[in-house]
């Protein structure tokens, strides 16, 4: 919703929250999540406004709110109410106001150090207790204080309150790096962004115990929601970039590659260069870069051949420099990359092009770009690529897509698709879920929309619980071929009971569609079932707006439909025949456990 996009109009959001909520609740396909909020100050509007940002992301929250100021008691000494709520997320809404045992100028440096150590231990006990609930925990870090007793020395001396909070932030960051499941909401940065004079409101604190001004609450909530969205795989995946006057200044068709503004020689050139550098680093986080420009391709590529161009033509996984309408180009690229158009952010300096894309493809994010020096900030503040962890797969994603392009070229040289698949010399490494790959498996489960038969989402804790459950069959697979390694691309969870195994979850990344990996995985599932005396496999297809692709999947691998619910959910069963013949003959399968031995 426009009202919830950057730049935020905080007072409009606060005043119209009921109406915004009413409108957002009318959306289809909302997913329900349980969110526990514990606080060290008034939660009130924080909960109300957080609900808006989550609804806007398609998430309908049910809240459990701790007692006023009881964040520590609620988590460390839970009387069972929080545990029985079964939160999907815990948000610890504490601030610098909740730092206790603060040092004073009268303390000796050693005493001040002891105070810090004691307070650090208190917070670590809190984080440990929160993580024991087994769901992601979001913890605010600590903003700088409103006043500084010692002036500048407050940030330097161990007895300074400013120094104390900053050291605690460092402790929190180190803890978050070494403990999976703890995510820091950086209110230190947010408060700086808003300005401490705006962030701190003595009146709101003394009268209502709000730790920040009401007008800063929307920015806070947007930040918390961004973490939750990211954890639920709701980030954007690609940026489609216009070229002329967007990635560089000027028009390359008229000015030539030497004439465009890029590099350190002009103010606009420096601004475009920084935008390119930012995009290049986004691609290192797994964001796919695409060109969407009205240009001749050969001329457009000359711009990236400049020595001072940070981006090179092969940094892009798709390059559309042509005279087609841009919405068409974006739709085509979405299809080629096997992602949905609403996974795109579109950067274009031309308001008419932006309007066209917005109208034709309303799901695409289209930031308002005004002057070149503001482009970078507009892209950054959009919050479309909030990262909660950087996996090896993220770093390699663009390379994988480029390999796919080479596979597509190879495919063109084969008349028969099975011959092409054989020529890829594919190897799948399969095994039950293991600790080492839990993060990637969880990410895959939560990000996959198209090949996802049930769209059930699992937290890292739930995935670990499945892996440890002897009645649960879990399988994941990575796929490599002669062009490269696709990494872990498919996962399956089946619950066994007697002679039946019920497939609770089956996902596969669009990166490896049409490679028969799903058949190889099913062959392995059948073998595992037979080994433990399971004779019947059941599964269901739960329709969503995005998984039509697998509507008939079970039927294509030999399942029989046993029923269909009013909501379109289809139930299937497969009785394993005594003479089961493997479905896949084009992938060599290795066991991950053999590789480790």
């Amino acid at each position, binding site marked *: 919703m426009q009202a919830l996009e950057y730049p935020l109009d905080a007072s409009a959001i*606060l005043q119209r929250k009921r109406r915004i909520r009413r409108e957002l609740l009318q959306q289809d396909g909302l997913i329900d999540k349980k969110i526990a909020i514990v606080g060290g100050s008034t939660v009130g509007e924080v909960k109300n406004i957080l609900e808006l940002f989550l609804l806007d992301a398609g998430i309908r929250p049910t809240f459990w709110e701790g007692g006023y100021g009881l964040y520590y008691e609620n988590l460390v000494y839970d009387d069972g109410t929080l545990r029985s709520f079964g939160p999907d997320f815990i948000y610890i809404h504490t601030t610098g106001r909740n730092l206790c045992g603060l040092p004073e100028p009268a303390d000796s440096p050693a005493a001040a150090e002891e105070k810090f150590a004691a307070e650090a231990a208190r917070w670590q006990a809190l984080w440990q207790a929160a993580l024991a609930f087994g769901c992601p925990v979001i913890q605010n870090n600590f903003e700088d204080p409103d006043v500084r007793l010692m002036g500048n020395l407050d940030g330097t001396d161990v007895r300074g309150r400013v120094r104390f909070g900053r050291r605690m932030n460092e402790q929190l960051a180190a803890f978050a790096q070494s403990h999976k499941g703890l995510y820091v909401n950086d209110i230190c940065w947010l408060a700086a962004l808003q300005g401490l004079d705006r962030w701190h409101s003595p009146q709101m604190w003394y009268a209502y115990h709000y730790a920040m001004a009401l007008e800063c609450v929307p920015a806070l909530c947007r930040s918390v929601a961004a973490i939750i969205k990211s954890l639920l795989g709701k980030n954007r995946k690609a940026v489609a970039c216009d070229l002329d006057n967007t990635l560089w200044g000027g028009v390359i068709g008229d000015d030539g590659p030497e004439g465009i503004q890029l590099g350190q020689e002009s103010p606009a050139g420096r601004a475009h260069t920084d935008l390119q550098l930012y995009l290049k680093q986004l691609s290192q986080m797994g964001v796919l870069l695409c060109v969407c420009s009205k240009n001749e391709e050969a001329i457009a590529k000359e711009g990236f051949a400049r020595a001072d161009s940070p981006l090179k033509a092969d940094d892009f996984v798709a390059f559309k420099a042509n005279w087609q309408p841009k919405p068409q180009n974006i739709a085509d690229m979405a299809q080629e990359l096997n992602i949905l158009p609403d996974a795109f952010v579109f950067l274009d300096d031309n308001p008419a092009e932006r309007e066209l894309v917005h109208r034709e493809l309303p799901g695409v994010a289209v930031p308002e770009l005004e002057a070149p020096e503001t482009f970078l900030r507009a892209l950054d503040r959009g919050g479309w690529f909030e990262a909660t962890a950087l996996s090896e797969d993220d770093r390699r994603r663009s390379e994988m897509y480029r390999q796919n392009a080479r596979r597509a070229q190879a495919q063109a040289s084969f008349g028969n698709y099975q011959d092409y698949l054989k020529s890829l010399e594919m190897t799948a490494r399969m095994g039950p879920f293991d600790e080492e790959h839990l993060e990637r498996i969880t990410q895959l489960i939560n990000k996959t929309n198209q090949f996802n038969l049930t769209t059930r989402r699992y937290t890292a804790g739930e995935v670990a619980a499945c892996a440890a459950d002897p009645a649960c069959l879990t399988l994941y697979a990575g796929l490599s071929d002669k062009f490269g390694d696709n990494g872990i691309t498919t996962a399956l969870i089946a619950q066994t009971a007697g002679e039946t195994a019920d497939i609770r979850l089956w996902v596969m990344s669009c990166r490896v569609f049409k490679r028969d990996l799903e058949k190889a995985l099913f062959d392995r599932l059948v073998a595992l079932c037979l080994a433990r005396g399971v004779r019947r496999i059941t599964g269901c297809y739960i329709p969503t707006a995005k998984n039509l692709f697998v509507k008939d999947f079970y039927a294509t691998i030999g399942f029989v439909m046993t029923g269909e619910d009013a909501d379109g959910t289809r139930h299937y069963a497969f009785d394993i025949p005594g003479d089961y013949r493997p479905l896949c003959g084009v992938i060599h399968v290795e066991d991950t456990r053999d590789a480790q031995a």
Partner: protein
Amino acid sequence: MEQHELMEQIQAIFRENFDDDSLVITRQTTAEDIEDWDSLEQINLLTAMEKQFGVKFTLDDVRDLENVGDMADLIVRLKG
């Protein structure tokens, strides 16, 4: 500003805040009369009034506000 004009603007703030275009506000209206008007909402209403009328309430100002009439009088006093 005329009294009725002030009351109309206050009513507009209430209508927007409570998402109810049929809400009618008088000087006698209190938190008892509007279901969602709690202490939390009071802060929102006061913040909206500060913005609308270009005034700033102190802790003292907002301590004993009994009804909408008190709010209107406060705004008139601060605007001078």
